[in-house]
């Protein structure tokens, strides 16, 4: 299970966001370059198509693979009151044969994308991961070298934190309170809810850039 929120930020403000995060999280940023393949199951595996995502981390010289299944999200009145999305998620490291395995099981490639950006992993009430990536699509199949950003001027920010059925409230609170710190630059919401950009983003970015290494006396 995980709590997740998403937001967008204009590419011009990404550097300012990075500075802000550097100050808030206190850890080093990790670069991200992930080739994500989204596979959908074929008709032989049940009436409902299931979707599985294979993430190949291309950052290291030796690519590592992860398989990820995202399930349904929590619904109901309680879920509406929480400002983050709580959904089931299963993730595991796998060997590089995972793609062949899923193809043999009957899964078909639905779409693929390339995420390039950075991430911070830190603990602040919960183990939180914030990733800021530019999403690219490949015009030719599997051609990760020539990828084109889906939206050149906008990048995706995602804040996730693993949770369990017992503690998801605390995790949700931790995530939303962390998101408040990012308020001057971007607005985060449940995936699927559009937010628009924040009017203060430009001013906040300017102020962050002017004190590089900035003090975050919050």
């Amino acid at each position, binding site marked *: 299970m995980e709590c997740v929120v998403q937001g967008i930020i204009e590419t011009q403000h990404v550097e300012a966001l990075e500075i802000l995060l550097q100050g808030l999280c206190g850890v080093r940023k990790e670069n991200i370059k992930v080739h994500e393949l989204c596979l959908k199951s074929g008709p032989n595996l049940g009436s409902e198509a299931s979707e599985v995502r294979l993430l190949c981390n291309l950052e290291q010289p030796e690519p590592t693979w992860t398989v990820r299944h995202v399930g349904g999200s929590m619904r109901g009145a309680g879920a509406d009151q929480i400002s983050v999305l709580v959904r089931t998620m299963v993730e595991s490291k796998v060997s590089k044969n995972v793609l062949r395995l899923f*193809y*043999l099981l009957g899964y078909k490639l639905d779409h693929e994308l390339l995420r390039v950006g950075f991430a911070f992993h830190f603990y602040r009430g919960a183990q939180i991961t914030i990733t800021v990536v530019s999403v690219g699509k490949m015009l030719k*199949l599997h051609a990760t070298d020539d990828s084109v950003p889906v939206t050149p001027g906008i990048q995706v920010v995602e804040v996730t934190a693993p949770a369990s059925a017992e503690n998801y409230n605390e995790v949700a609170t931790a995530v939303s309170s962390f998101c408040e710190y990012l*308020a001057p630059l971007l607005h985060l919401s449940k995936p699927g809810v559009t937010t628009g950009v924040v*009017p203060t983003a430009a001013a906040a970015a300017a102020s962050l850039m002017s004190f590089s290494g900035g003090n975050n006396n919050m």
Partner: protein
Amino acid sequence: MDGPAALGQGHTQPQQEQAAAKVVERLNPAVQQQLNLESVKTRAVSLFKAISRILEDFDHIARTNSSPKWQDVLGQFSMVNLELYNIVEDIKKVSKAFVVHPKNVNAENAAILPVMISSKLLPEIEADDNSKREQLLYAMQNLSVPMQLEKLKARIDMIGAACESAEKVIADTRKTYFGTRQGPTNILTLDKAQAAKIQEQENLLRHAVNHGQGLRIPMDQRQITSGLPAHLADVLPVADTSQTISESSGMYMKNTPPMASNAVNNQGALMQGSGSQLMGRAAASPGGTVMSSFDNTTASPLPYANSPRSGSNMMNTPSPQQQTQLQQQQQQQLQQQQQQQQQQQQQRQRLMQLPPHQQQILAQQLRQNPMAGLGQSLGGQQQFQGRQLPSGGIQHSMGQSQLNQGNQLNRQFNQMSSTANSALFNAAQATPNNQMMSNMSAMMPSQPLVPRMQFGLSGGNRTLGSQMNDQVFSNMGASNPNNMMPIQQQQQQTGSQGSFGNMQQNTQNLQPTMVPMQNLQQNFQQQRQNQQ
């Protein structure tokens, strides 16, 4: 009395005992292990120094009117707090050695007991206390005690109120700070056009990330034309026989012949693709693994003797010759689709050569065949090499009721004395409708597979030439045009979903493996015309 062992060991002279608590005496070694008084003293002293340093910092900040770096201050405070806590805890542990709990009075204790349980403070502490008290009550010394009490209470209340207001101010400031991001009081608003543009881009991006919209490449464009990136190069097999594995396995629509329904399309393409796929991945399917071990002259021992498919595996192992032939033909397949079309037409014509009664038998049996059995028996293209279908008599033996269940089908396979091609054939034939046929026609274009299917029909004849395959193939096609569909459906119902792909693929193979009958061609054409 459970007095301190140390004091017990000391001299019992009252004068000394009065100052025992502060006198540096040799403690009981046990106590000393628990708490090294020297170290406690050192820690207390260092703690005191740290606190005084912090206070100095605050003084400095107050004097210079600069705002403190709260992060640092809080950090320092927490450190000091922690250290104090640790010291207190340590002392608590050994306080037993310095705490008196008198239970019994005897001659030994009588002298020191009053001292120990006296609540009078030590002189230094007492003096300290007194001075503090004087300081506090300096202004009120003249007043009566109740007045002094009231004043003290008022003072406490004032301090409490000050704390509360400070907290409130902090909370309000925080709210307004975060409120401004939404309140456009003095903030530039984006103009409408720009906002709309950004909104549109945002939707695009969100949908791409969450649902993959806009990222799907149409099936016809999913060709691996350039080299694969490094992380995929060794994952997706790029042997020349299986260039299209990624696409065939992933995108089943490649080389899709025109088909009636989408489902049929998928199946047809799946058959085309997965054939090569299975070829390339010898270890992938159970059928695949038994590929190499089959000797078409004998019923070879089953690699998966205990698997549910073991019955059908007998016929799933092609001979090495056929296997290599098949691989070669798969290569050709990728390059010569037009030839496939022509060849399949020829096959259909050859199918017409099957005697009519056999065709009907095939049709009957196919109608009844559950997909599970069929799928299991159709392990792969290679699996049918070397198979020979039994004569019509054996086909008759496949009762309709038996064919309706995959397990039973397997048993039938086991019972077959001849190569299990017959069972496979019957299984394939048992699918009732025309859907199979349309799939078969779809399969036709995947030419190289077809000629390779040496699913011999003639009982004693083990010639596995391509001609036979063609004939068989066309025979299958003739008798049961649309059998694929029900096979699929049945397969899903029976739950043997894993074999679906195999089954698809193998229907192509089934066709060639039908008994080459010389007179089928005309019949086939007639049937196809009737059906179409």
